[in-house]
């Protein structure tokens, strides 16, 4: 913990910095109106209830303030003796009750509409992982490939640790954004692979928990093409603050084009699983993935944060039997934070990560792991 003096000093310096740079002056006071019918209805409800509360506040605090100013002993006020009135009590029970009914009616209407996820044009399964999102476009016919990818924070560790200027979309940018069409009903099926998460995009007024073992529904019809950003809203562990959501809403024609392209990529990826990797390619791709997905726990240089997150540099699991390394990555370590990554990456990526881990951080094993080695473990495990 910091010494008090140091804390005050940093506070003072921080304040000065804030004033001098006027950095990112954002004084947003209210929620966005959003880009869907439900989000606009939600916003209107929010503003209606807000003004009701202001009105009640003005009356109640008005009487209070008036009493404080006028009914003070120092001004010679004598206390009145009125006391207890059933009539008054009934009035101030009934009026709030009627206001609440007036609010409950539109709230019920909006909620009912928001709950109607039927007749969707497109279904996307959103799976939360510690600490990234997986988007799977459910095939709508037997000859479609399932398009599925992970979406991970794209902000660099240097920006987070303040050794680099922070970009405009600091902490709200990802490597692979979710892509959806405008003007079509997109249904989201929410679940989780580990702990609870909550998928939230304010502009859609969609926030739903991702619960392991359960599937929740939500839906949008986005009316404006654009980029919409959100964050995980349910505490999901260490990097809860670092798993943002980025959605690109495209015009339907553009979306169809993108989707066809994804179909091609999905086919190509299947081919790739049988490819042979070169050492240089594996190391380069492995480092890239390590930096995006492993570094939060295992840290730069594979130092880890023992005992919860073990070091990889010189560890038995990373330098011993290569089968153990593959098994650990593919199947995880039950009961610990080490997830089973076998589903999160394809065989090429898994092979690259293992090759990287077994040769970086001074783990000079010289092993080059191929996708076929990984597939052997994946298939053997099933």
């Amino acid at each position, binding site marked *: 913990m910091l010494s008090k003096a140091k804390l005050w000093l940093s506070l003072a310096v921080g304040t000065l910095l804030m004033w001098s740079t006027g950095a*990112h002056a954002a004084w947003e006071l209210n929620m966005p109106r959003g880009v869907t019918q439900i989000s606009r209805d939600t916003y209107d409800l929010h503003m209606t209830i807000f003004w009701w509360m202001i009105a009640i506040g003005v009356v109640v605090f008005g009487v209070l303030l008036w*009493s404080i100013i006028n009914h003070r002993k120092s001004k010679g006020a004598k206390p009145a003796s009125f006391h207890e009135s059933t009539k008054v009590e009934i009035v101030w*029970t009934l009026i709030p009750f009627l206001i*609440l009914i007036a609010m409950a009616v539109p709230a019920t209407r909006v909620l009912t509409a*928001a709950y109607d996820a039927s007749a969707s044009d497109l279904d996307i399964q959103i799976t939360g992982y510690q600490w990234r999102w997986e988007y799977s476009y459910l095939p709508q016919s037997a000859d479609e490939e399932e398009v599925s990818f992970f979406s991970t924070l794209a902000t660099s560790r240097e920006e987070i640790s303040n050794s680099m200027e922070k970009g405009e979309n600091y*902490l709200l940018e990802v490597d692979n954004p979710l892509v959806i069409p405008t003007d079509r009903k997109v249904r989201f099926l929410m679940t989780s692979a580990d702990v609870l998460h909550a998928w939230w995009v304010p502009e859609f007024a969609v926030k739903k928990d991702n619960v392991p073992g359960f599937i*929740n529904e939500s839906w949008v019809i986005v009316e404006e093409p654009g980029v919409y950003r959100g964050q995980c809203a349910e505490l999901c562990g260490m990097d809860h603050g670092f798993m943002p959501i980025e959605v690109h809403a495209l015009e339907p024609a553009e979306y169809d084009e993108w989707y066809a392209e994804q179909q091609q990529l999905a086919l190509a990826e299947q081919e790739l699983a049988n490819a042979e990797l070169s050492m240089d390619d594996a190391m380069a791709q492995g480092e890239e993935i390590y930096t995006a997905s492993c570094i939060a726990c295992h840290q730069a240089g594979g130092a880890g944060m023992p005992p919860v997150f073990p070091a990889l540099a010189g560890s038995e699991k990373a330098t011993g039997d290569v089968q153990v390394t593959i098994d650990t990555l593919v199947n995880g370590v039950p009961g610990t934070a080490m997830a089973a990554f076998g589903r999160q990456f394809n065989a090429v990526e898994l092979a690259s990560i293992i090759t990287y881990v077994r040769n970086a951080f001074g783990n000079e094993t010289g092993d080059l792991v191929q996708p076929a080695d990984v597939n052997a473990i994946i298939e053997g495990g099933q």
Partner: protein
Amino acid sequence: MSTSSAALDHSHDDHHHGPAKGFSRWLFTTNHKDIGSMYLWFSFAMFLLGGTFALVIRAELFQPGLQFVEPNFFNQMTTMHGLVMVFGAVMPAFVGLANWMIPLMIGAPDMALPRMNNWSFWILPFAFALMVSTLFMEGGGPNFGWTFYAPLSTTYAPSSVTYFIFAVHIMGASSIMGAINVIATILNMRAPGMTLMKMPLFVWTWLITAYLLIAVMPVLAGVVTMMLFDIHFGTSFFNAAGGGDPVLFQHLFWFFGHPEVYIMILPAFGVVSAIIPTFARKRLFGYDSMVYATASIAFLSFIVWAHHMFTVGMPLAGQLFFMYATMLIAVPTGVKVFNWVATMFRGAMTFETPMLFAIAFVVLFTIGGFTGVMLAMTPVDFQYHDTYFVVAHFHYVLVPGAVFSLMAAAYYWLPKWTGYMYDENLGKLHFWMSFVGVNLLFFPQHFLGLAGMPRRIPDYALQFANFNWISSVGAFLFGFSQLILLVVVIKCIRGGKKATDQVWEGAEGLEWTVPSPAPYHTFETPPDPSLIKDQ
């Protein structure tokens, strides 16, 4: 404690014994005043500890980027801050007030179960030592939030979670014993003439609170026991892979957790209902309706728990039920606020420190109530849920709500406890610094939440920077201002202007009929029934 006046009052009693000397006085005491004082000191210490955790959080959130702590430690701070403040600061402080004041208010010589009273206090320091010690263990302390949602708190928890579970069990046992004691005292030990509908509201609110405690603390004990079994004995209550249900955890937790928030606010209503009439020099406007409103709130608190879980994926009918039930709470709560305002209306007010805190309570608690009504609206809650809007809401009802009522109570009864008047100038300084600090701290958090900042994150997007640093400045102002209270209390114990028995011109009730300071033993014979007034 002044023993001289006690000795004078009881000089007829040859067997009278005052407090023992030294540490054994406190260790073995069965005296409600000693135990009350220990509860109050303990809760103040926990308030400073929990506040220190909060300042670590606010220091980290002062600017975007990670500056002082790692995300994992940040999560331990949010968790510990919540647990220590709820179970260590607010609840024991109200139990301390109950110990001190309930026997004095109903004309009883002591609590009904004095030995259990001793025990229920003395297990608390052990519970908290156990819990806080986890911060120094391998793998760190609890890092899953004070709501400890499974499976983050089971399968994915640090190994210290077992200590946390044991600590919660002890705290729960302490609360249940305290509650049994309060009920037994109020129902059995009222002085002749002290009918239920003549009891001061503080006694009423505590009676109802005690029932809430007895009803829900076992549920909390159950839920942490289920966690323990999931972690160590291979069960799958909350593990979906084993056929369990993570949402079940939330239903059980909030069945405890929602009444819990009323456990922390009902006694505050009682305190404010005592202070406002005193300094307005006018009877409480509607005593009966206040009692009924308290009971209604307590009843409703059992049927609204799932409003904490609107995004969890309940069926529409469930959402609607919990929305309507939650909105209903605004009605009895409104009755309370209107009654306090009607009591001040056309009174003859003076503004000593307890009154300042009480008025600030009425205003700021009501603001927290307004956001509460907004949060009750399910479709809009989808936008508010788990954001800083919620953080602002519950801190408004808990800090300038429950905590301000505790400050008010401390200033109000301090002369009765010590026999001296506290330093009014320092008290007012404490109030104004707290008032400015608390609003600077929590008001901007409404804007942060609406603009989209989730809670429990150690770092945030740049558009949240401005209100975060304002909030952090407010946090440090509020935090350090609390040391003024410590100075006031120590000064007041050591001396000052002698307090009269009545202390406050407009004060009414049995506690003001005994000397100041209250002798070690009071009401060994029941008070004269003519002293017991209609409410």
